[in-house]
């Protein structure tokens, strides 16, 4: 089996969300790419500091909603006019008003599916292992720590990056290596 090249990250912990956002902004301006932030709760200005492109989830949601709408309309049309035509109080077989509630519900359901699974897919979740978990201190990212990760070529000296992060206010800096999918 071919030996897999390990990936490495420099991980830095910050005490406050403001420090993390400002450090992320400055590291990005220095030209670092592929960074990511970790915080126990949603981070104000985090995506802007990382320079992330607009999310693609809304389009997946729209696609899901339209799929749901078309599915519901065709399903009800087929059932009520072809498969099992039933005269209800003399109303026409193709009674669109009666189908709107189902159409609405299915559009909402499929749009929600689009958001849920689209978000999981785009975030590459579920992901039970990531090399970042190699660092014991990284546990604080789910309670009180604000972390920044910067990709770093494996085996080279990370002292320069570490010093830069410390200068920006990092309280703890470490390097993790591991196999990334």
């Amino acid at each position, binding site marked *: 089996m071919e030996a897999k090249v390990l990936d490495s990250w420099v991980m830095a912990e910050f005490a406050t969300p403001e420090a993390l956002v400002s450090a992320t902004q400055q590291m990005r301006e220095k030209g670092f790419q592929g960074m990511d932030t970790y915080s126990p709760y*949603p981070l*104000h*200005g985090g995506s802007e500091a990382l320079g992330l492109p607009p999310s693609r989830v*809304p389009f997946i949601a*729209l696609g899901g909603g339209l799929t749901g709408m078309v599915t519901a309309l065709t399903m009800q049309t087929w059932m009520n006019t072809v498969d099992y035509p039933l005269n209800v*109080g003399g109303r026409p077989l193709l009674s669109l*008003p*009666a189908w*709107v*509630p189902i159409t609405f519900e299915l559009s909402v359901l499929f749009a929600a599916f689009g958001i849920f699974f689209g978000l999981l897919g785009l975030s590459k979740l579920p992901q039970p292992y990531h090399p970042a978990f190699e660092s014991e201190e990284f546990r604080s990212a789910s309670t009180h720590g604000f972390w920044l990760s910067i990709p770093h070529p494996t085996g080279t000296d990370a002292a320069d990056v570490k010093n830069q992060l410390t200068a920006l206010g990092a309280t703890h800096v470490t390097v993790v290596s591991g196999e990334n999918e």
Partner: protein
Amino acid sequence: MTAMERYTGTPKLMVPAFGLGVVGLVLTAVGFFMNPEATAFSYLLGFTYWVGISVAALIMLAIFHTAKAKWLIVLRRAMETMAITVPVFAVLILAFIPLMKYLYPWIDGSPLAAHIHGIEVEHLHHKKEHYLNGGFFAVRQAIYFAVWIFVSHRLYSWSTKQDEAGGLDLTVKQRRFSPGALPFLALTITFAAFDWLMSLTPLWQSTIFGVYYFAGSFLAAFCLLTIITVQAQGKDLYGSLVKVPHFHNLGKLIFAFTAFWAYIGFSQFLLVWIANIPEEAPWYGLRMYGSWRSMSIAIFFLHFVLPFFTLLSRKLKEKPRLLAVAAVYMLLMHAVDLYWLIWPAFSGEAGPTFHWTLITAFVGVGGVAVGFALFRARNKYTFPVKDPYIAESLRYVQP
């Protein structure tokens, strides 16, 4: 950046607005002597359109106080000014005294009563007389306007007092008062919609009708707020303080209430359509078939489908100028929607007809209302300068 002072430029706009309003109302009065029936319905449209926006702004204000919303504080004075305009409608409703008999078949001496035929129909009309009669109608109008004027004046006077005094206690008062006022506001606008619009067809009834009128008015109020905010550029005006996230929120609210309007409208329609009972079905029958059919379909697409998909775009909602264009369009569609509610009671099978008083009454009521709003806004700050949370509102970003 210069300091924000009290706005002194109102007379420049107030005089033309009042002038236009008075000319419109005078022409409408001329129309009354030429064609009293058509003029009565035109005036009802103009009146319900503008008073709906004013009361919706008041409800919106109370809701935001109840929710302790901070992002909109920079927009709040504009909303308060819209709400404080409500006394002018207490005067304008006096025109109902000569007009009512041409609008409502249930009033004594109405020429429309001649159309009520058959013992069963007469019996049903008779059963509604306890509610639908001139005296009780007048009492109800007095109650509605008393509630609206009281609530809007309380909130406005605390808010403007805070411009001088500052401090948290006046904010606390507004936030305590608003949730208590909301049930009264909700009931009054519901019954006002029943009285003004639903009783045009006395035998038709729909409990959700008040919400339908409210939904359209709410949408129009947000549109008007957006337009005012985009236009409020210049010395001592708050427009330059309003940033993209505020407009994005306004856009989201316009979008939400476009969907809400359709949701309520369809809920009302579905129940009537599926039950198909003789008292209710004719109201929709008139609009669904024959000469009103194409207009009903057009309203569905132009008041809901088109704006829904247009306003889905985030980019549009974040561009104030484009959003203002969409808001102007929705304000126009709200007028069309009210026309669709009111006019069939006048023209019936003849379909969508036009009478020139539709324009004069709309401009007349609107001009006087806008003029009065500007009269109230003169020499005031255009946003609550000493609200304790104003700084948070100014630096608001999307959560």
